[in-house]
C-alpha cells in the first residue's frame, strides 16, 4: 500500500514544498550563478581558504581547444563542464596508456575523443539551459581507503544539506557500474544515509528502492565510518559564510592525501536523501526554524551545536537513545 499522506507520516519533503518554501525563499536569485557555475564556485572557495580540488586550467572558448594539448603531460585528471548539472559531462581519466587515457571504467580515450568531449562541453551540451559553457581540468581526487570496500570505479562523495547554515542531513553517495563512476543518484549511484552524530552509514537507496548491500559488490552498506567527519561538518558550516544560501547541498569528496574537499554546491539539492536516511526532512527543517530568526547570523560553532541539538530532538535519534 502506498501511504497517501507521507508528508504527515514521515515528514516527507516534496518537490513542491522544497521549491515553494525553501529554495525559492531561502536562496537569493543573485547567488545562483555563483553556485551553478563550478568555476566561479571554485574561485570563491579558494579565495576563502575552503578546500577544493586544485584547478589546473580552464578552456573558455573553442579557439582555446589547442591548449588542451597540455594534458599530454598529465597522467590523471578530471574534465568538467562549468555549468553541468547532475554530474553530466564529467570525464574522469585515471591513467595514461601510451598516447591514450584510461577512463575509470577502463575504456581508452584518444586525444580526439577528449577534444570532442570538450567541444561538446563548450557548445553547451551538458549545461543547464543549453547555453555555451566552459570546460575545466582539475585534480583527480583519489578515493579514501575507508571507502575501498564499497566504492566501485569512482569516488564516493558526501552530500551535506545545509539549512540556514546548519547541517541538516547527510548521505554518502556511492558510484556504481550503472552510474559510470559518477555519484549521482539519478544516474544510478547508491545513496547511503548517515548518522550525523558519528558519521556512520546506515542503509542505502538505489533508484528509489531501499537496499542493504551495494548492487555491484554486494558489500553491506551500513556501518561504514566516514573519515574526517567532524572537520567536514565544520567546513560545511563555514561554507555558509561564503555562500549565503539558506537551503543548499554541499558535495564533499575525501581525498587520500588532501582530506575532505568541496567538489560542488547545489542550490536545488535532490530529495532522495530522505530515502537514503529513511527519514523525512520536514521535522529537521522545523526544528531548525524553531530557533527563530537569526540562526544564520550565529557563529559556525554555534550552528554545529544547533545541528546536534536538532538531531537529538528529531524522532529517529530519540528512538535510538530510548532503545
Amino acid at each position, binding site marked *: 500500500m*502506498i501511504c497517501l499522506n507521507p508528508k504527515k507520516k514521515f515528514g516527507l519533503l516534496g518537490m*513542491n514544498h522544497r521549491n515553494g518554501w525553501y529554495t525559492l525563499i531561502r536562496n537569493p536569485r543573485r547567488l545562483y550563478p555563483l553556485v551553478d557555475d563550478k568555476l566561479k564556485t571554485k574561485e570563491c572557495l579558494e579565495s576563502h581558504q575552503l578546500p577544493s580540488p586544485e584547478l589546473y586550467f580552464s578552456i573558455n572558448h573553442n579557439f582555446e581547444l589547442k591548449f588542451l594539448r597540455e594534458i599530454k603531460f598529465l597522467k590523471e585528471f578530471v574534465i568538467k563542464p562549468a555549468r553541468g548539472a547532475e554530474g553530466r559531462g564529467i570525464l574522469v581519466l585515471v591513467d595514461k596508456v601510451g598516447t591514450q587515457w584510461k577512463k575509470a571504467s577502463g575504456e581508452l580515450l584518444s586525444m580526439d575523443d577528449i577534444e570532442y568531449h570538450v567541444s561538446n562541453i563548450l557548445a553547451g551540451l*551538458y549545461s543547464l539551459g543549453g547555453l555555451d559553457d566552459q570546460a575545466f581540468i582539475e585534480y583527480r581526487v583519489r578515493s579514501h581507503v575507508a571507502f575501498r570496500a564499497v566504492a566501485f570505479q569512482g569516488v564516493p562523495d558526501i552530500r551535506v544539506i545545509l539549512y540556514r547554515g546548519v547541517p541538516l542531513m547527510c548521505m554518502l553517495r556511492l558510484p556504481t557500474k550503472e552510474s559510470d563512476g559518477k555519484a549521482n543518484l539519478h544516474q544510478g549511484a547508491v545513496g547511503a544515509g548517515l548518522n550525523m552524530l558519528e558519521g556512520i552509514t546506515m542503509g542505502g537507496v538505489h533508484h528509489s528502492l531501499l537496499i542493504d548491500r551495494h548492487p555491484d559488490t554486494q558489500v553491506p552498506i551500513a556501518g561504514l565510518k566516514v573519515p574526517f567527519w567532524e572537520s567536514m561538518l565544520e567546513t560545511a558550516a563555514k561554507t555558509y559564510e561564503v555562500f549565503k544560501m539558506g537551503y543548499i547541498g554541499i558535495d564533499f569528496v575525501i581525498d587520500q592525501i588532501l582530506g575532505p574537499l568541496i567538489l560542488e554546491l547545489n542550490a536545488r539539492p535532490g530529495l532522495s536523501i530522505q530515502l537514503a536516511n529513511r527519514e523525512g526532512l520536514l521535522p529537521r527543517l522545523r526544528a531548525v526554524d524553531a530557533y527563530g530568526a537569526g540562526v544564520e547570523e550565529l557563529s559556525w560553532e554555534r550552528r554545529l551545536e544547533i545541528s546536534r541539538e536538532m538531531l537529538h530532538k528529531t524522532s529517529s535519534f530519540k528512538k535510538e537513545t530510548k532503545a
Partner: protein
Amino acid sequence: MNRKVYLFALLLILAAAASISAKVVHGGHTVSSEYSRHLWRINMTMNITGKGSRAKVRLTLPRDNARQTIYNEHFENDEMVFYVRERPDTNRIGFWRSELLDGRKTLQYTFSAQLKSLMYDIPKDAHLSVEPFKTYPVDFHRWLEPSEFIQSKDVIIRRHLKKAIGREKNTAAVIRKLFDFVRGQVRYRSEKGSKDAKETLKKLTADCGGQARLFCALSRAAGIPSRLAGGIILTGGTKNTTHVWVENYVAGKWIPFDVVNDHYASIPNHYLELYRGDYYLFKYVGLSKFEYFFFIDVENMPPVDNRWSLYALPIHFQAFAKVLLLIPMGALVVAFCRSVIGIPTYGTFGPILLALAFQEISLQMGIFFLSVVVLTGWVLRKILDHLKILVIPRMAIILTMVVIAVLAMMVVGSYFGAKNIFYISLFPMIIITWIIERFSVTQSEDGTLAAFQTSLGTIAVAAAVYYVIRMHAVRIYLFAFPEILLIIMALLLVLGRYTGIRVMELWRFRELNRLKGKTSL
C-alpha cells in the same frame, strides 16, 4: 506569504465574477423590453462527396438585422479552403474550395441566433405609385423589375392583378387583396423544385416558393418593391427544409408577408432569415453527392452586445482569439499535471502546442507522427554519436532527417492511396518536428530512458490538454467571458503555493512504507 497569494487570487476571482455578472445582467440586447425573443443554436452540416476534381460549395450565411442577431459562429472546414464574402448590399456568403476533392467531407456551420417576432402596421394613407421607377431610387429597381421566376410584366400576371385589386389605389388595401388572392386561390402542396410565378398561377398548387413568387410578382406588377426572403423555420430537432416568404417595401420599411403560414405584415420569432432575393441557399460545383441537414437546438446564452467583447472581432480573427484563449486553459492543465501529479514534460508550452496540433490532425494521427519522428531522431542520434559531430550541426542533421522521414511517409501514403495524409497542415507538422529537439536535448542531459519517459509524459499531458480544450463548453464560455482567464490565473496562483506531495512522489518514496513497522514516527 500564503495569505497574500490567496488574497490576490480571491481578488482576481472577484474581479472576474463582477465582470461576468455585469455582462450577463447588463450586457447584450437581452435586457431590452423584447419579451418574445428566442435563442437558438443551429448547426448546418453538409456532407459532400467529391468526384476527384476541383470542387466549390457556397452557402449563404445569416446576417444581423432588425429582428435577428447572429453570434457565436463556428466553422468546421474539414481542411477545405474557406472564406467568407461580406459585401454591404448582397447576401453574406461562405465559400469552401478544394483544388482536388476526392471522397467524403463534412462541412459544418454552427451558430447561435437570437430572434424576435415583429408586427408591422401598414400605413393607411400610403397609395400606389403611378410611376414606381421614378418614385423609388435606383437601387430599388431590381425589386420592381421582373426576374426569371418572378415574371411581373407577364400578361397573365397583369390580368390577374387587375382581377384581384380592381381600381384600388390604397397600398394597404392592395396588399391585403393580393395576400387574400394568393391564399384563396393557391393550394399548398409540398413539391420538389419550386414553381415560378406563372406556373403557380396556372396550376394553382404550389409550395412556399411558388406562392411567394406569385405574391412577389403581383406586388411588383402593382408597383410595390417586393423581394423574396429565405430561411428556416426553427423547431427543435433535425430537418432539411427551408422556407421562403416575401417582403414588401411600404412607406420606408420592408414588411414581411408569409402567404403559406398566414403571417400578414408580421413575422414570428422562429423564422430565421438566411438570404434575401430569389436565391439558393446552397450552390456547388464538382460534387457527386451533396447532403445537408439542419440540427436545431435551444441556446441558453444570450449574445454579448459589447463593442469591447471578442464577438466584435471579424470572424476569422475570432478563430485566432479562440485558439489563443485555449493556451492559458492548457497551461492550467499542464501546471496541474506537473505540480500535483508530477508528470515530466517538455516545458510548459510543449504539451499545449502538441494538443493544438492534435486538434488539427486527429489524436491518433498526431501520436503516430510523433512516434515516427521521435524514433527517427533516436535511431539517428545513435548513428551520429559514432561520427563525433558538434551539437548544433548534429541537431540540424537530425531535423533534416526527420523532415525526410515525414516527406517519405507522405510519398508512401500517396502511393498506397491514403490521401488523408495530405490534409495535414504545416503548423502541426512543425510542432511535432520541434519535439525532436527537446527529445535530443533531454536525451543528452538525462539519458535515453528519461527522454522517452518525458516524451511519454508530454504526450499524456498533451492528450489531457487536448480533451479539455476540445470541450465545447470550455470554448464557448472562454470566448464569451475572457474574464475566465483571471480565474485561471487565480487557480495558478493557488497552485503555485501548493506544497503537498506530488502523486508521482508517492511512488518515488513508496519504499518508506516498508519502514512502517520499524519506526513509528
